[in-house]
């Protein structure tokens, strides 16, 4: 479920980065404030545990396939939400850097989808209420429902972020229809693994599970990271959208043309014009990508401007130039290696 850089727009990447960074700073503050030095190596080693455990195949009964552990909820159950969030972020960072599993620009999206949802939504709202007076059955259902909902929210996040980015032209409804059921199945398996592990730990060493739920390690959960995240998202979305438009001059020109094409706006100027331009940009957003069938005359103009290459001659120039550039890049690389080998 890790999103790649190639599938998101910078605006979405930046917004999600800001949300993730806000929650990260908040969690770091909270962990630092109630720092129990012993938790520092515990977070590191448990992070490595989740990393390794994610690679173990668990055979799903009755089918030939296998499931995996997600990890966010187990970490929250053992470390509390703040330390678990920091640990999840570190896991996702290592996955992005070493395994190219999710890109660096998309890291914010992945942190929100896979870490934030399980630590700050599923854990406090679903898992924790189940654990007030833990019993075998409550642990099972708490872990199960929390894991399934965290994954459902996460995959919904992927759908929304992909749709708003506009790089993939898959309609959001269809994409959601593909994503949600698959992640329901994955979530159930993940929930079963999580429930099995937490039950086992509870039987073997009940104090580990109960201590975390009673809020001992890091105090009761506050809504601060959730609210900070949402606030930053709201603030950045505006800036994000304007940047988005400026990176696609045709979109900006199109919206400016619309905005300034109306006389009243020109005379009123100032804030109204800015607002109108914003509105145009926002309205343009879902249609970004390649707008399908042009409806009005202006759209036809934009359409042809955005696609200058429906012309044999220019196409050939682009292809020849592109191929040549790539060839030159490769020759340059080979040349450097040859020179190095000679001098060595």
């Amino acid at each position, binding site marked *: 479920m890790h999103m790649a850089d190639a599938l998101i727009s910078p605006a979405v990447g930046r917004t999600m980065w800001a949300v993730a960074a806000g929650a990260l700073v908040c969690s770091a503050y909270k962990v630092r404030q109630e720092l129990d030095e012993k938790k520092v190596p515990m977070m*590191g080693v448990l992070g*490595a545990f989740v990393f390794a455990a994610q690679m*173990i195949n668990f055979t799903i009964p009755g089918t030939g396939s296998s499931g995996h552990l997600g990890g966010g909820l187990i970490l929250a159950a053992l470390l509390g939400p703040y330390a678990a969030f920091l640990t999840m972020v570190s896991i996702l960072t290592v996955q992005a*850097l070493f395994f190219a599993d999710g890109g660096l620009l998309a890291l914010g999206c992945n942190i929100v989808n896979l870490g934030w949802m399980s630590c700050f939504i599923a854990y406090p709202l679903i898992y924790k209420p189940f654990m007030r007076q833990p019993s075998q059955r409550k642990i099972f259902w708490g872990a199960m429902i929390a894991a399934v909902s965290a994954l459902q929210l996460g995959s919904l996040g992927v759908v929304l972020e992909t749709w708003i980015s506009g790089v993939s032209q898959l309609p959001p409804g269809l994409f959601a229809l593909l994503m949600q059921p698959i992640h329901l199945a994955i979530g159930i398996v993940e929930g079963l693994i999580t429930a*099995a592990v937490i039950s086992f730990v509870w039987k073997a060493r009940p104090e580990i599970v109960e201590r975390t739920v009673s809020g001992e390690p890091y105090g009761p959960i506050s809504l601060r990271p959730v609210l900070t995240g949402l606030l930053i998202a709201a603030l950045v979305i505006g800036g994000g959208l304007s940047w988005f438009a400026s990176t696609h001059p045709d979109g900006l020109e199109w919206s400016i043309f619309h905005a300034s094409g109306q006389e009243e706006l020109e005379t009123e100027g100032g804030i109204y014009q800015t607002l109108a331009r914003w509105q145009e940009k926002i309205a343009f957003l879902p249609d970004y990508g390649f707008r399908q069938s042009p409806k009005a005359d202006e759209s036809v103009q934009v359409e042809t401007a955005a696609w200058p290459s429906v012309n044999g001659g220019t196409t050939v120039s682009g*292809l020849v130039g*592109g191929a040549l550039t790539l060839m030159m890049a490769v020759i*340059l690389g080979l040349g450097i290696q040859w020179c190095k080998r000679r001098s060595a």
Partner: protein
Amino acid sequence: MQGLESAWHSLHTIDELAFKKSIIHQLPSVIKLGVTLVFLVSVVTFPAEDIAGLMMMWVYPVLMISLADLPWLFLLRQMMVMAPFALMIAIWNPWMNQEPGLILGSLMVTQGWISFASIMLKFGLTVLSGLILIATTGMEGVCTALLRLKVPQVFVTQLLLLHRYIMVLMDEAGRVVRAYQLRAISGEGIQYRAWGSLLGQFLLRTMDRADRVYLAMRLRGFDGEIRLLRAERFSSASVLFLVGWCVFFLLARFCNIPYLLGEWLTGGWR
């Protein structure tokens, strides 16, 4: 995610690559992180139809890999492992958009296929640049850069500890799974009845290990912070490296050099 063994191999190889001594390896980590981020943003903002322009961006990975003496095949293999995920989402574009995008004689390529190619090219570029960053900087380098950028110390410590223990715990997970498989009757995966006990035992052992690690760290004077040696110097060459690449990315992004080159070359033909 890859299997335990291949993941272990990848991590180990990248850690070793980071110890090389090329001119790229010697640059300050924060400069390399900055260049990588500017590169990523430039690549992602390329319009979908500008595939020729995107070709110019390949100069960066090619040059960096050559200068840093990184193994081509290894990086390409790492990239290919993740390609199916991008492919799964990009492959829908040709179906969703069948408007003509490019006409080559009698051959018509739809906008969907062009944006598909654009996504895959961008995927290759972004993945390679991330791998180049970590293979030339290493985890400690990246953490030094993060500290310079005022990322909270708790998180950087967490990242360093995680990186140090991943190899240890992957070894251990490998042993646990091998021990299970030697005793199990059928199949590679863990059967349902053993899910909780296998992972639970492994988890408890991990937590005991964390306690021992903590005691060992305390004995050596650990106070909640891991100190990194920050001896990186900003030479004029490193600033030139940063500025040079940024100018190049902007040029590549806003002037379609390959297209101009192609037009110049095919000018007579047209």
